[in-house]
């Protein structure tokens, strides 16, 4: 079949086309992050988090009647709180990433741009991760206050950042996968929160999980519980960073598997659902 071809007169310049492939994810990430922060959603969540963190820090550092924690344990508590909240908000934002766009009717416009589906998903994941990074930034002064005098400030911050990022990448990827699979945004967010509840529940038991090999396997199979156990082992028990590395296997695998699944299946998940106002 022969066709007379009309080419765009202006269109996209050749040089910028090459740049497009490289930076499409960056443009998406930038805009998604701006939307997240300028719309007020991110700021409100951070404001609430900082109030919570202030209260916890105040109680653990000044109130002698309530403060029964050692200084190291206080730092550990604040870091665990930061990871928990940071991962929670990252998961909520990523769970809204695809299903929310579908519901708001903004996905189709994105899909007809030449930016690849993978770049769009990568941009959305990065934007969701800014929630974790901001949560961590807010935590730094609190950790600084609590870690004074015990010489673990650098260690605590590096550890919290590394472990939190690992868990946030894993759960953020899972959130986007759930969002791509769900027809409705409410279902996506509810499913993601339910997952988070399951993962965090063991960490909230008053004395942790009972002892024994079965519960040890259970703890190590849970990416959140095992990541927090690693933080505790270093900060509270004073173990070296290599001593309990096995605790990081699950968080690492979660990040790799969920991230890999997102790379492989993401483009197929980033689609309109059948029957969406097709006339």
């Amino acid at each position, binding site marked *: *079949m022969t*066709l*007379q*071809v*009309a*080419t*765009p*007169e*202006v*269109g*996209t*310049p050749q040089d*910028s*086309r090459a*740049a*497009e492939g490289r*930076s*499409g994810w960056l*443009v*998406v990430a930038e*805009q998604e992050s701006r*939307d997240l922060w*300028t*719309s007020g959603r991110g700021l409100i969540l951070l404001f609430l988090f900082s109030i919570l963190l202030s209260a916890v820090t105040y109680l653990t550092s000044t109130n002698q009647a309530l403060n029964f924690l050692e200084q190291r344990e206080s730092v550990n508590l604040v870091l665990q709180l930061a990871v928990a909240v940071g991962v929670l908000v990252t998961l909520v934002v990523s769970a809204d990433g695809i299903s929310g766009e579908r519901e*708001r*009717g*903004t996905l*189709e*416009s*994105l*899909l*007809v*741009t*030449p*930016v*690849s589906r993978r770049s769009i998903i990568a941009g959305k994941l990065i934007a969701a991760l800014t929630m974790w990074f901001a949560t961590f930034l807010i935590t730094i002064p609190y950790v600084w206050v609590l870690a004074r005098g015990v010489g673990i400030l650098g260690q605590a911050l590096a550890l919290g950042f590394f472990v939190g990022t690992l868990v946030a990448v894993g759960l953020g990827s899972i959130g986007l996968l759930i969002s791509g699979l769900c027809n409705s945004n409410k279902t996506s967010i509810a499913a993601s929160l339910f997952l988070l509840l399951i993962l965090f529940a063991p960490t909230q038991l008053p004395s942790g999980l009972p002892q024994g090999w079965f519960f040890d396997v259970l703890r190590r199979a849970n990416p959140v519980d095992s990541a927090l156990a690693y933080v505790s082992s270093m900060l509270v028990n004073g173990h070296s960073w290599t001593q309990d590395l096995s605790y990081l296997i699950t968080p690492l695998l979660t990040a790799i598997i969920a991230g890999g699944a997102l790379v492989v299946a993401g483009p197929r998940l980033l*689609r*309109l659902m*059948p*029957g969406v*106002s*097709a*006339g």
Partner: protein
Amino acid sequence: MTSMTVEAVRLTKNYGGRSAVEDVSFTASQGEIVGLLGPNGAGKTTTIRLLTTVLSPSGGEFWIAGHPSTSANEIRRCVGVLPESGGYPAHQTGDEYLRFFARLYGLSRSKARSLAADLLALVGLEKRAGSTISTYSRGMRQRLGIARALVNDPVVVFLDEPTLGLDPAGQAQVLDIIRTIAKSRAATVVLSTHLLPEVEKVCSKVVILNHGRVAVAGSVGEVISTALIEQSAHLRVPLDLVERARNVLAGFPNLTVDQLAEQPDVLTLAVDGAGTGGGSSDVMNAALAAITAANIPVLRFELEGARLSDAFFKMTSRAVA
């Protein structure tokens, strides 16, 4: 010389056992405005989504600006789309929104800024460039959506119900912009709409879909004649010449002439029996020629059944039956 920019050949989309679009074929050329018509659920939106690579076809093939359906990325570079009921980020400004999409097409920040300003001016939103989209009226949002569809200077622009929910002034504004896109940018516009009189005015070609299939395609005139609609006409002549006009028309044996009781200066003409389509038009033309030849001033001559809406209803109801 115009060139073919859209060619769809037996395009089919199935969802499970249900066929949303079946064997849809049509073409469009540069600078042409093609009306994609059909009742709700006829397959208009699905056809647009197929041609813009949002959906993958179950069968058939298509070319956009010479790019085959398998070259999705190339097609996306040369099409602009206003989706049906597309949403907008409420907290972004119109300017910010267009700059974002311009950058998705690889434009630098400065080029994106200047392009956004140009496009906002084109759609008459330059004064609201810095306002958040949440403050825009529906018409303004539709115009912003059209501006967004133009950020890559597309060869083909697909507009899915751009006038939906707009008041008459808003509809007229949008139709003016559509004309401008086709004329000054030489882009092909595929327009899905329910505004049949407007389609008749702006579209050079029409594709009527029904139940996922092309009921008829061609120029407005061809579609109307294909529909084979029985024609009648209203002829107004000076009251004192009505009898003379009746006598002239009596020379046409297959033409029934009646006088309206409430308007005695108006004669209704109807072609008898199966006199339809081209044959019907011939009789009407001959009758009108005879009236003018008899020096009877024609104050009004209005054909019924010769409008696109008549053809539309005929074609879509026939397929149902």
